[in-house]
């Protein structure tokens, strides 16, 4: 109740001129009351009324209008009400002290209230923000769940159908069609969810030490079904290749690059996946022997839904945008180039300046 009321007042008082008007109005109203009832209300009691008005005002308007009201009320009160009336003169130490006290209390009360309000507002904003983030995450999780459940049923049922045996060759082929369509749909859902997470800022990274060799192996395993007859060559020198990364995101980024190379280059041409240190960075690289990138496209290949003019069908045009989003979320960067002996090269750089502490041990 109070909250909505308060909100309404604040909305009404949003323009600055209204706040100053409210400040002047408050002082005028209290002064008028004091003037009309001056036979019953002495100047000390009136000071209390001014203070109450001051604090209430500070709750709904900003710091400067409150300050204006404080100064204005002090002047009017002293000039009109403090004896002798209609003069700035004061009779003795007691009145001097009263005026001084009023000014100090008015200023301090407005300042404290303003601070309290500012603090409350920041907290409210943070709370609203975290609630909307939470809502976004919950929504994405439930969408993900709604897509995955039927997909699980389709893929699980086909595999089980085949395992039960007694099916003809053409039935087997049809089951295969359902399976590959289900797997493809699953990849599309995965891409769309990843893109939605990136777009909504819902992506949370879990950075930890990862071994490049491990990440590459995992991506190769993940994209194994998409290789389409492309042989893979991995090149990593002996010894640890550690960097701080989010394993799952980096695996997905590399898989997307490998799948991209497999789709857009002639079947049978090799794809080279490598890792090495360069300028205190870990460089993860996917190079193909395809036609390479057309001039002027290197900067745009990572844009969402951007497809090269002669691109083969397959994918929804999000793969490389996800690569860029995932890598940048981990504090790395991506770039595309053409190799000296043809083919496109996709690079991922991750900072690797701080070498991890490693245990020493001998046989």
């Amino acid at each position, binding site marked *: 109740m109070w909250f909505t009321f308060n909100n309404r007042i604040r909305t009404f008082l949003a323009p600055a001129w209204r706040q100053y008007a409210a400040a002047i109005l408050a002082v005028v109203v209290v002064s008028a009351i004091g003037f009309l009832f001056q036979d019953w209300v002495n100047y000390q009691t009136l000071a209390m009324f001014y203070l109450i008005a001051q604090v209430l005002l500070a709750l709904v308007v900003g710091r400067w209008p409150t300050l204006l009201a404080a100064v204005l009320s002090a002047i009017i009160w002293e000039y009109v009400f403090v004896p002798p009336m209609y003069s700035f003169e004061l009779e003795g130490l007691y009145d001097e002290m009263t005026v001084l006290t009023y000014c100090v209390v008015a200023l301090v009360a407005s300042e404290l209230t303003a601070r309290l309000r500012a603090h409350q507002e920041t907290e409210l904003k943070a709370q609203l923000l975290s609630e909307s983030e939470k809502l976004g995450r919950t929504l994405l999780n439930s969408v993900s769940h709604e897509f995955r459940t039927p997909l699980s049923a389709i893929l699980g049922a086909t595999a089980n159908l085949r395992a039960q045996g007694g099916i003809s060759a053409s039935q087997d082929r049809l089951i295969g069609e359902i399976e590959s369509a289900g797997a493809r749909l699953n990849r599309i859902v995965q891409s769309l969810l990843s893109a939605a997470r990136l777009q909504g800022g819902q992506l949370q990274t879990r950075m930890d030490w990862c071994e490049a060799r*491990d990440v590459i192996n995992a991506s190769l395993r993940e994209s194994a079904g998409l290789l389409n007859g492309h042989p893979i060559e991995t090149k990593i020198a002996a010894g640890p290749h550690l960097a701080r990364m989010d394993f799952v995101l980096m695996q997905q980024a590399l898989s997307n690059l490998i799948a991209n190379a497999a789709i857009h280059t002639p079947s049978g041409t090799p794809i080279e996946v490598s890792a090495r240190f360069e300028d205190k960075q870990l460089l993860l690289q996917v190079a193909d022997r395809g036609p390479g990138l057309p001039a002027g496209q290197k900067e745009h290949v990572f844009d969402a839904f951007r497809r090269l003019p002669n691109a083969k069908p397959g994918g929804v045009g999000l793969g490389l945008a996800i690569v860029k989003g995932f890598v940048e979320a981990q504090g790395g960067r991506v770039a595309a180039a053409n190799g000296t002996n043809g083919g496109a090269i996709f690079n991922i750089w991750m900072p690797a300046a701080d070498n991890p502490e490693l245990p020493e041990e001998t046989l």
Partner: protein
Amino acid sequence: MNDLTSTTELSALVIDDEPQIQRLVTTVLEANGYRVATASSGAEGLATLVQQRQDLILLDLGLPDISGIAVLKRLREWTQTPVVILTVHDGEPEKIEALDSGADDYVTKPFSSGELLARLRAALRRADRNKAEEPVQRFGNITVNLAARLVTRENQAVKLTSTEYSLLRLFVQHVGKVLTHRQVLREVWGPEHEQKTQYLRVYVQRLRDKLEPNPDSPVFFLTESGIGYRFSAS
């Protein structure tokens, strides 16, 4: 193995609120000789478990009433029945929490029935093996003699540092099971090194270099992305 699956019928409880997943898992399990009970909520699952003993539990993490993790923690208070978690692709933190809370393994939706059955068999085998552990174990051309602390590859002794051996022993003792980074670091390096994943990365690579037929495409020391490692017997 055979004495496990063929002589007595195994019982499994499926706790999942999705009727479609329930039906699918039930069909797959029944076709493979399991007796299946189902529950659609955490409370129902726990109640069913109290009434009848189960050999296996399949638990979905996203339940309508109490979280799957809470169900897991509650049932781990009184039973060591193997629990395999059903979860979705992006749920790595959730998977880690489940594994650290006593889950035996997980399958990610969408899963194939072959994968599901393999995970269940491995979990059952481990539950059975815990009773009597073999001192000498063979994996391909590798032999690990836990009694003599001896490791051979193609009948040649393999020299391992004491940390490498501790890590290998941990993997061998949990063959087929996924171990989280935290679990391994805690066991091999101690609780104060729980966060030092870099140790683990380097030492797993060393074991691969010494024991894998092809270190660049491992068959024994498998990486579980973002979660940990699994030592595979095949």
